């Protein structure tokens, strides 16, 4: 596919920044605001209900399997496998469109909800048909997206009318987007994860077998149901087909949400966003992700296979360029400290382990204040925390800590000798409106 860089629009979240190659999710009108139902139907050839009604559930699942669609919320789990597990349930089920998006450096779910609510609802409709759902919910990040979705639902009529019983604003904790957290939230409990099994496909929302899918995944699913697997595979790589939304933040002139085919070189994304060419480090995949060195890693394809040699993964599509001159160790410490506080407080190793790791990273981050064993202690605690939570939160933090200490190894040595190379602070987004700002 030729890499035609679409013209970027505004910096605002309400407009897409464009993308590389053919746009799918962000195709259509370039103005801000949600695309109306009538326009959506004209553009895609009618309401999806008329297409879906002719199809058997199994044939839709087979299409999704052949398309090779995977979850775009970060897990990259095969969507067809999840659909099939629910279709086998043989009783009433529930489907939840998950737009919680608690990753602070990600805005793609929010952008999709604001601009293309009907793509998401098309996917919800297709999924609901396939798994014979009797309960549907959409979970959104803020009140603005909630209003947009509620009004989009009233626009849909005839075969595409959807009986969505809940459009709910998510809880804002980092772990609130985990699928069991979302189910707990909808059931009226705190939005904290629980241990699986019992799997959600056996017991979820209101004790129904439940499918939780990221909103971007659902949008792709709706398009696969319309246009088929062969069309879906015309973008992306053979092993990882399709497009994905990425959120570029940090040292770039045109930060925002882009749609790119999987496998596109990281450097092409940075170029489209007018990334600072002197930036030396990019964080990929979010706060459970990995740091990549630039310009060496600019040729790395944005795919699981392409990022594996760099110990990274596309995750939910976060690309953060560290400001040149900022200290990755000091900024990384602030992220880890924030992530430690995002523990749901349920699992001992996560509560105590992440706190200990964050505190010790703090002594490393302050030049000359660290003890001789700090690196060994962090490494020991990372080993003790990994895999020991009910959810993957501790594992994600461990991944980020290891990547930070490895990537900024020279900086660690410098800090141990009482110096720091920082000439300015970075700006990794934390909670809304808050950034890591490690002062040099």
């Amino acid at each position, binding site marked *: 596919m030729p890499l035609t860089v679409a013209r970027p629009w505004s910096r605002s979240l309400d407009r897409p920044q464009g993308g590389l190659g053919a746009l799918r999710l962000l195709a259509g009108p370039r103005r801000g605001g949600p695309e109306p139902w009538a326009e959506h139907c004209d553009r895609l050839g009618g309401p999806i209900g008329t297409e879906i009604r002719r199809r058997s559930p199994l044939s839709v699942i087979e299409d999704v399997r052949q398309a090779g669609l995977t*979850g775009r919320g970060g*897990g990259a*789990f095969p969507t067809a*496998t*999840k659909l099939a*597990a629910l279709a086998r349930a043989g009783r009433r089920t529930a489907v939840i469109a998950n737009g919680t998006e608690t990753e602070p450096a990600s805005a793609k779910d929010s952008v999709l909800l604001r601009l293309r609510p009907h793509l998401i609802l098309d996917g919800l409709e297709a999924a609901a048909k396939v798994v014979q759902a009797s309960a549907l919910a959409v979970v959104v990040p803020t009140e603005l997206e909630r209003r947009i979705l509620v009004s989009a639902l009233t626009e849909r009529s005839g075969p595409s009318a959807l009986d969505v019983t809940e459009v709910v604003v998510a809880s804002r904790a980092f772990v609130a987007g985990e*699928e069991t957290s979302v189910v707990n939230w909808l059931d009226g409990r705190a939005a904290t994860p*629980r*241990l*699986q*099994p019992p*799997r*959600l*496909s056996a017991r979820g929302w209101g004790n129904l077998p439940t499918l939780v899918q990221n909103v971007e995944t659902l949008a792709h699913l709706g398009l696969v149901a319309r246009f088929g697997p062969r069309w879906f595979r015309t973008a992306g790589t053979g092993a990882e087909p399709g497009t994905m939304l990425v959120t570029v933040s940090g040292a770039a002139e045109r930060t925002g949400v882009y749609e790119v085919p999987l496998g596109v070189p990281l450097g092409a994304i940075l170029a489209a966003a007018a990334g600072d060419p002197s930036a030396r480090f990019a964080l990929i995949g979010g706060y459970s992700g990995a740091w990549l060195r630039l310009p060496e890693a600019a040729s790395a394809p944005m795919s699981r296979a392409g990022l594996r040699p760099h110990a990274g993964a596309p995750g939910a599509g976060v690309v953060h360029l560290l400001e040149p001159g900022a200290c990755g160790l000091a900024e990384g410490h602030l992220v880890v400290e924030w992530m430690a506080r995002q523990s749901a407080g*349920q*699992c*001992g*190793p*996560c509560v*105590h*382990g992440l706190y*200990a790791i964050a505190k010790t990273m703090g002594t490393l981050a302050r030049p000359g204040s660290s003890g001789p064993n700090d690196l060994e202690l962090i490494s*020991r*605690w990372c080993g*003790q925390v990994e*895999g*020991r*939570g*009910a*959810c*993957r939160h501790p594992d994600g933090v461990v991944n980020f800590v290891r990547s930070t200490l490895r990537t900024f190894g020279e900086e660690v040595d410098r800090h141990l000798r009482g110096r720091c190379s920082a000439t300015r602070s970075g700006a990794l987004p934390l909670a809304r409106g808050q950034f890591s700002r490690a002062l040099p």
Partner: protein
Amino acid sequence: MSERFLHVDPTMCVGHGLCWEILPELIGVDDWGYPLLPEGPIPREYRRRAARARAACPALALRLDGIRPRQRTRVEP
């Protein structure tokens, strides 16, 4: 009898420590007092004490069953 595995629900465990007192040969303890369980099957000679450890847990956090821990911790169905 088929293979048996020990599991802990980390949301319930508060680190009483009875399990590793009962079965220190197989159960370790981390720096904060929470149990580190063996990933492999419980050897035959320890099965009785593994069952005692499970029954002794005041938080009812331990399980002893035939599911390999790795299957249990996979996130998706």
